[in-house]
């Protein structure tokens, strides 16, 4: 009976396992192989060993794209975490109609990125855009936004706030699992709102913060669509992000072997960052231990 159950389990798992090997593990292994070859998609690959990895060391644009991506990640993750936690705190209120507001905050994150990109192109248009209109109302100088080399990356990072809905939902779930008794006890002891936030809310939702931090770092390092649609890596190379550089090498320059090597370096970078985060998490992430 048990053996039959196991067999049925594998039969039901079969399509997923097949799909995984065909469309994930298989291409992954092929890209690893191609990273050691010179391959242009149209002719047979030629084994060159570590040639692609050595090329990176002297490739100026490799370092430029890595730097751009790191700066963008720091900005966008910071903004994302701040605004999604802040939004969740606001939406955690027990008020009439709060469900509507939760929906309003969540919906933008479900819009297709291309549609959002075009909306933001309008918002940040230097002559007629809403952003400059608001700046002028405040008596400030209009900006070039995506066309200013100093502002292009921050502008794209600001756009990331549009997608905080998913983060808010996850933070909300964490906030709602904090026992009310802790706040009651704190109030009795005379703790104000800020103290309650710092000593109760933050530690109790730290696992959720950790989760959102890991996910947003991984996603930010893979930023591609915004730069591809809105700036094409410009002005100059200011928004030439790492994945955009991979794409260019693969499909524009026909250097698929080199693009594969770049992709594996990105994987290693993200892996290392995630590992470091896990190692450091012990210092600030608090996991509630069950009384059982």
């Amino acid at each position, binding site marked *: 009976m048990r053996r039959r159950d196991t067999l049925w389990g594998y039969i039901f798992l079969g399509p997923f396992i097949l799909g995984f090997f065909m469309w994930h593990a298989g291409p992954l292994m092929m890209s690893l192989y191609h990273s050691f070859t010179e391959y*242009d*998609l*149209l*002719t047979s690959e030629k084994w060159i060993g570590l040639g692609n990895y050595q*090329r990176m060391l002297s490739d*100026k644009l490799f370092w430029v794209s890595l730097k751009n991506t790191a700066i963008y990640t720091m900005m966008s993750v910071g903004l994302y975490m701040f605004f999604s936690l802040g939004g969740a705190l606001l939406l955690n209120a027990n008020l009439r109609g709060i469900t509507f507001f939760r929906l309003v905050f969540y919906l933008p994150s479900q819009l297709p990125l291309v549609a959002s990109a*075009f909306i933001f*192109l*309008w918002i940040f*248009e*230097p*002559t*007629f855009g809403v952003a400059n209109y608001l700046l002028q109302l405040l008596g400030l100088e209009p900006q*070039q936004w995506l*066309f200013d*080399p100093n502002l292009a990356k921050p502008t794209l990072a600001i756009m990331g706030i549009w997608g905080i809905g998913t983060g808010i939902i996850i933070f909300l779930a964490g906030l709602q699992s904090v026992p009310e008794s802790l706040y009651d006890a704190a109030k009795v002891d005379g703790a104000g709102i800020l103290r309650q936030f710092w000593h109760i809310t933050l530690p109790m939702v730290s696992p959720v913060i950790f989760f959102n931090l890991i996910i947003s770092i991984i996603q930010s390092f893979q930023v591609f669509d915004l730069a591809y649609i809105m700036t094409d*890596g*410009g*002005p*100059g*190379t200011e928004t*030439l992000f790492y994945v955009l550089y991979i794409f*260019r090498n693969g*499909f*524009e*320059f*026909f250097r698929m072997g080199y693009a594969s090597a770049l992709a594996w370096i990105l994987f290693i970078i993200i892996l290392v960052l995630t590992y470091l985060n896990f190692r450091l998490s012990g210092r600030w992430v608090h996991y509630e231990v069950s009384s059982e």
Partner: protein
Amino acid sequence: MSSKKLFEDPRGEAYRLGDRFQQGDISRRCFLRRAAALSLSAPAVSAILAGTSPAVALAQGKVNTDVTGGIRVISNTGAGAESVAWNERIDAFQALYPNVKVARDEKVGETFYKTADTVLLQIAGGNAPDTMRVGNFSAAQLGARGALMPLDELIASDPDVNWDDFYSGAQNAFKVDGKIFALPENGESYGINYNRSAFKNAGLPDPREQWDSGEWTYEAFLEAAKTLTKGKGINKKFGFLHEVWNSENWIFFNGGKVLDEDLKTVLIDQPAAYEGLQFAADLTNIHSVAPNPLQYTAERGPIAQFQDGTGSMYMLGGWYIANFKNDIKNFEYMTAGAPIGPGGKTSKLEISGYAISSDTPNPEASWEFIKFIASPAGQKIWSVVGTPTRRSSLKDFIDTSPYALWFEPFVEVLENVQHTPFFKKSAEINRILSDGQASIFLGQQSAKKATAAMADDMRAVLRS
């Protein structure tokens, strides 16, 4: 004049009239009366009466039943007139080659780059089309990697091609490593579209007259741009509009080059090249006669700004002339060549052509197809949307096109057009050029300094 109607209205009355007669819907007498009213040409009328379709009448060729088989052709087209002309041309080919079945893989509204990606994936996936429309960059990238059939022997051995009838820029556009990988379709040069009313109101000499007399110099152009620039802020009117993606023109106008023909010598850091770019950048940063070409948006691009009178002059390729002529109602629209610099009357060449996949199972039918595309008949059909690349077709185009007056300066420079040589690493060279210019046009560094850095990067690519 007599054939104008047939070509102005590819899917309109003239064709429908011929179809109706051949289907028996109208009598011979009725057909002749209506053909006269439409001013159809005598050869077209005769052909229709003889039982051939308007498309075949246009093609004026013999029906060939020896070539057989099926081919698939892939191409990007613009919606509207371009799509109509594309299909009409294939109809004409099919009429001449009834035993060749053409499967049409038309990508309406796509850019060359987007369709080039699709073709690349099809080839890589073992599903290469038999023939494909290519730009010179894609022909070079695919041809240099063995994905396209070299056509030199076919061109040399087939008298129908008449290779010398193509102007030299078209002959060389698809040559990579000494081999030709596509037959030219249409080629466009660049020139100045301008608001003639604004020039008259400002009392300025007419650029077209100055171009014709050789007086349309950099100085004359700059003076006109300064005079026509007025106001500030959101209401500012600019003397000139241009774009960074075609700024290579300024290098050519100034007698410079990006790369030598030997593909070993980088020339962009020479004075002839960087001084050209500096002049273009100074139009925005020093003289303030042009908006920053890096800062157009889709909603308020240079085309819209020229059409609404915000800019009095706009440099663009000839492909938009018909649109401007048809759409601009608020001022008198005219054209001139680009300012004449040390490079003389010249411009960059943008060109399309048709190539054959090296894997095609039907090379004979594929060859006949692309040969028809590049033939005088094929170029005649396509001339409603693109400037021909044959000298004979260009003469006919200027004689018959209702837009001939506006096309003349653009056609004049075709014998002297240029392009940076296309080869395997063209995409990387082009990226260095486009990314490296940002700092020049933003006024962050001089063209001399920026091109020195670009030249180093280009040399590194050539060495790799």
